[in-house]
């Protein structure tokens, strides 16, 4: 009997320990509770205070001493004696604060999220592999490692990250590892490549080729010109250099391409958000108070925690640079040094094509190209899945790129396949661009640095203490014939392929224009006299004009003016559409709430400010109107893309009788007038319902609800709602889920470069750290921090702690 008791008690104890030592999934994932709750090693150990102890660490691979001072924002100021140590220290300190995020993002890029969260992520992972993300990162890695400078940078950065990873015991692991019960794997150079390709994925993968092919078949060419023109003629391109493009452009044998004539029933991949975009501008000394240029940049990306950016100051002989870095990539990406400053916005350009592949037979081992059967390459991709058996996917590669869609993925016909051609698949050495920009002294250095830049194509703004300002749209751009790239292409003929690229010195650019400023906001790149055909999924049409208007009017500009301008909430889209919309509304049959909304809207100053109620009514109205206008597209059985907001408003105003405005489902014949009226009723109803649900007045910040979401599907416990104005199409482009992910203003005074910045998050990626969200409220209220940009270690003030890295003697 006693032995039964003993056995039972022992079994319970062991079973309990076993149960509590591993994670489970009972509908909801459960962390390993024993490990997780243990206050000696579990989550409790991730709770931190502001104060940090000074540390001295011996690191192998370091050649000399490195000093890192954390200032009061936990920004590391890294002082090294050579480049190798500098990038090792950057890797080390970035990993110390952002390790989980760095690895998670590269796992996401590589299609490996199923390993962490299970089968729910398998479709996402397959998409990533079928886009050729790893293929792209490998190509990029090859060219990085082919250059001795880039190789040394990446090697040391990787070593720094790994030194940190090796130093970790369970109790030091970032919280998310404990929650999901896994551990970091060694960092590799490939992961740096993956991280950069992840940016290319966010920024340069926009395409609507399948959708446009369907639109061509359904509506014909005239409708395409009307709804989706190549250039919406918005005015205010990035570079207006009319008549001054003095070069001999590369030309192709301009045989017109045969346009496709078919309907494609494939379900396209989920599109990246169209609201990612950015602003940048630089004003010359002639317009500023100090007489020195001021540069400003705010990239609009998904607002996540841990933040996508990590601010760092890197100092070594020959380099003294500060600004926003991407955790997972060495160097500073958007920043300044003691001579120059630069910033980026996304260049809208079609850098994606789909080639229709004709396979010889079901084996898909050969495909047609110029009358011959070419051998295809097969890659077997293994997907490890948490809690299930691995999944295998065979991906066929043609010389165009991976065959993304086939009968096993989003397609329905085993012989109708589409191969994916993407600029980010090409070898590239962006890291060298940033290496050189970080050390740049003048405009020539900036130009040279950009020659190494391939993708994702960006509008690089520039300003220097010597007084120059400049803008250059840099990327590797195929030379295209008219309409090329808008529709799916015939993959059986090499004549349809990208045959030449625009030489770097023929890219869109200029320096010191007469108007005294340069700016970009994802709009159409240039004037009509630029000799190359340009097409993209969409262009921005409002922020650009607002920015240019403000900058034209301003003089005696101070850095504060520029910071305030980043927070500009003027809604140009509303200013251009609301008067017409209001005139379309039939006011005779109004209910009380409708009359009230109409009155509020009529008195609106077009500011999407935090308190504005009119902004809520306008946006609710617009959000109801847009799908009503394009019901033909929304309800289409095949994939179609929507025209832009700009084009929609233009048509509503100028062609109110357009056949598209008729709602197909109703017997009546609607025009713009009826649609706008119906949308108004719906919009008001939406706001009224919201008021009842939330028991609040519809102030814009509440109605919009800006949510800064943790990378793990916005875990509420680690995410925040903040009060913030703005919206898409507004300079302060915060639309609730994406927006200004980094705001920077740099005054390039000869005596001293001064800089300010902020981002919606904090320097620590640890939800248990006071620095996890320490800049969030400053960002939300529209303030900036002045950065400590000192060339000497002992001048950094309010240091909260210091790390001294010393070479370990072997």
């Amino acid at each position, binding site marked *: 009997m*006693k*032995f039964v*008791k*003993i056995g039972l*008690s*022992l079994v*319970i*104890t062991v079973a*309990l*320990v076993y149960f*509590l*030592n591993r994670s489970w999934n009972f509908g909801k994932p459960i962390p390993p*509770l*024993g*490990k997780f*709750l*243990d*206050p*000696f*090693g*579990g*989550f*409790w*150990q*991730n*709770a*931190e*205070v502001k104060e940090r102890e000074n540390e001295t660490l011996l690191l192998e691979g370091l050649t000399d001493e490195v000093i890192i001072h954390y200032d009061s924002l936990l920004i590391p100021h890294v002082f090294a004696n050579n480049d190798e140590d500098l990038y090792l220290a950057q890797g080390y300190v970035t990993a110390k604060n952002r390790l989980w995020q760095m690895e998670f993002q590269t796992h996401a890029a590589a299609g490996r999220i199923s390993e962490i969260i299970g089968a729910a992520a398998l479709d996402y992972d397959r998409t990533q592999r079928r886009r050729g993300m790893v293929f792209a990162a490998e190509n990029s890695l090859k060219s990085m490692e082919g250059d001795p400078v880039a190789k040394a940078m990446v090697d040391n950065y990787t070593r720094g990250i790994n030194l940190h990873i090796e130093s970790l015991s*369970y109790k030091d692991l970032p*919280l998310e590892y404990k*929650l999901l019960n896994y551990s970091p794997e060694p960092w590799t150079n490939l992961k740096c490549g993956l991280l950069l390709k992840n940016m290319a994925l966010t920024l340069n993968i926009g395409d609507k080729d399948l959708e446009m092919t369907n639109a061509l078949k359904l509506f014909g060419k005239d409708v395409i010109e009307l709804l989706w023109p190549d250039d919406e003629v918005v005015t205010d391109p990035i570079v207006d250099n009319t008549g001054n493009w003095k070069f001999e452009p590369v030309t192709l044998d301009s045989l017109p391409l045969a346009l496709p004539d078919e309907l494609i029933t494939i379900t396209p991949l989920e599109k990246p958000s169209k609201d990612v975009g950015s602003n940048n501008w630089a004003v010359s000394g002639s317009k500023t108070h100090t007489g020195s240029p001021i540069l400003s940049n705010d990239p609009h990306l998904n607002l996540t925690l841990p933040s996508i950016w990590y601010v760092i100051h890197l100092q070594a002989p020959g380099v003294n640079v500060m600004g926003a870095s991407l955790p997972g990539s060495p160097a500073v990406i958007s920043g300044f040094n003691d001579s120059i400053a630069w910033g980026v916005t996304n260049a809208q350009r079609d850098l994606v094509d789909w080639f229709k592949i004709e396979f010889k037979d079901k084996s898909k081992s050969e495909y047609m190209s110029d009358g011959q059967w070419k051998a295809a390459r097969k890659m077997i991709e293994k997907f490890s899945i948490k809690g299930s058996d691995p999944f295998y996917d065979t991906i066929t590669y043609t010389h165009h790129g991976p065959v993304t869609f086939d009968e096993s993925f989003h397609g329905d016909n085993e012989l109708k396949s589409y191969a994916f051609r993407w600029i980010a698949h090409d070898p590239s050495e962006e890291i060298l661009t940033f290496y050189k920009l970080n050390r740049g002294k003048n405009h020539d250095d900036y130009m040279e640095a950009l020659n190494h830049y391939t993708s994702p194509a960006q509008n690089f703004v520039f300003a220097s203490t010597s007084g120059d300002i400049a803008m250059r749209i840099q990327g590797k751009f195929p030379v295209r014939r008219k309409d090329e790239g808008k529709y799916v292409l015939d993959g059986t003929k090499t004549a349809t392929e990208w045959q030449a690229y625009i030489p770097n010195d023929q890219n869109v650019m200029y320096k010191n224009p007469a108007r005294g400023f340069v700016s970009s906001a994802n709009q159409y790149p240039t004037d009509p006299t630029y000799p190359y055909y340009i097409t993209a999924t969409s262009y921005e049409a409002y922020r650009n004009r607002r920015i240019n208007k403000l900058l034209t009017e301003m003089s005696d500009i101070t850095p504060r003016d520029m910071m305030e301008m980043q927070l500009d909430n003027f809604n140009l889209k509303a200013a251009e559409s609301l008067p017409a919309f209001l005139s379309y509304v039939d006011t005779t049959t109004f209910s009380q709430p409708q009359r009230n909304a109409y009155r509020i809207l009529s008195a609106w100053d077009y500011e999407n400010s935090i308190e504005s109620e009119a902004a809520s009514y306008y946006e609710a109205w617009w959000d109801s109107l847009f799908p009503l206008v394009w019901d033909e597209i929304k309800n289409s059985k095949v994939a179609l893309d929507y025209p832009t907001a700009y084009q929609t408003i233009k048509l509503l105003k100028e062609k109110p009788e357009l056949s598209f405005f008729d709602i197909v489902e109703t017997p009546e014949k609607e025009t713009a007038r009826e649609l706008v009226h119906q949308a108004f009723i719906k919009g008001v109803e939406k706001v009224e319902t919201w008021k009842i649900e939330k028991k609040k007045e519809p102030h814009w910040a509440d109605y919009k609800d800006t949510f800064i979401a943790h990378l793990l599907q916005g*875990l*509420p*416990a*680690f995410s925040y709602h903040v009060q913030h104005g703005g919206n898409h199409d507004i300079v302060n482009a915060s639309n609730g889920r994406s927006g200004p992910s980094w705001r920077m203003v740099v005054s390039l005074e000869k005596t001293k470069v001064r800089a300010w910045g902020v981002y919606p998050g904090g320097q620590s990626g640890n*939800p*248990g*750290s*006071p620095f996890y969200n320490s800049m969030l409220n400053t960002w939300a209220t529209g303030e900036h921090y002045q950065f400590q940009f000192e060339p000497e270690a002992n001048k950094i003030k309010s240091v909260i702690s210091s790390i001294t890295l010393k070479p370990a003697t072997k």
Partner: protein
Amino acid sequence: MKFIIQLLGTIVVCFVLQSFLPWWTMAVGAFTVAYLVGNKGFPAFVAGFIGVAILWLGMAFYIDALTHSILTEKINRLLPLNAFVATLIVGGLVGGFASLTGSLIRDRR
């Protein structure tokens, strides 16, 4: 008296073990102390439960006070029950059953 000895012994031994080793070594500690002290089954279970619970809660409260509850609040939103309660139950149960096993084995003849 033996109850108090087992309780204090569990706290001290488990504290030392957990300062260096994984969380589950606490079960080995509680087991060993219970075996050596030799309480009867039920009191042994209770002493082990309370001992580990005090140790875990004490440490948790210490961290929580030091860090102004910065993480506790977030974990409370993440877990279906309060983080302190969860910590107490999990630590206590393992400590209790390990101690019970220790006491039963000593008492086997």
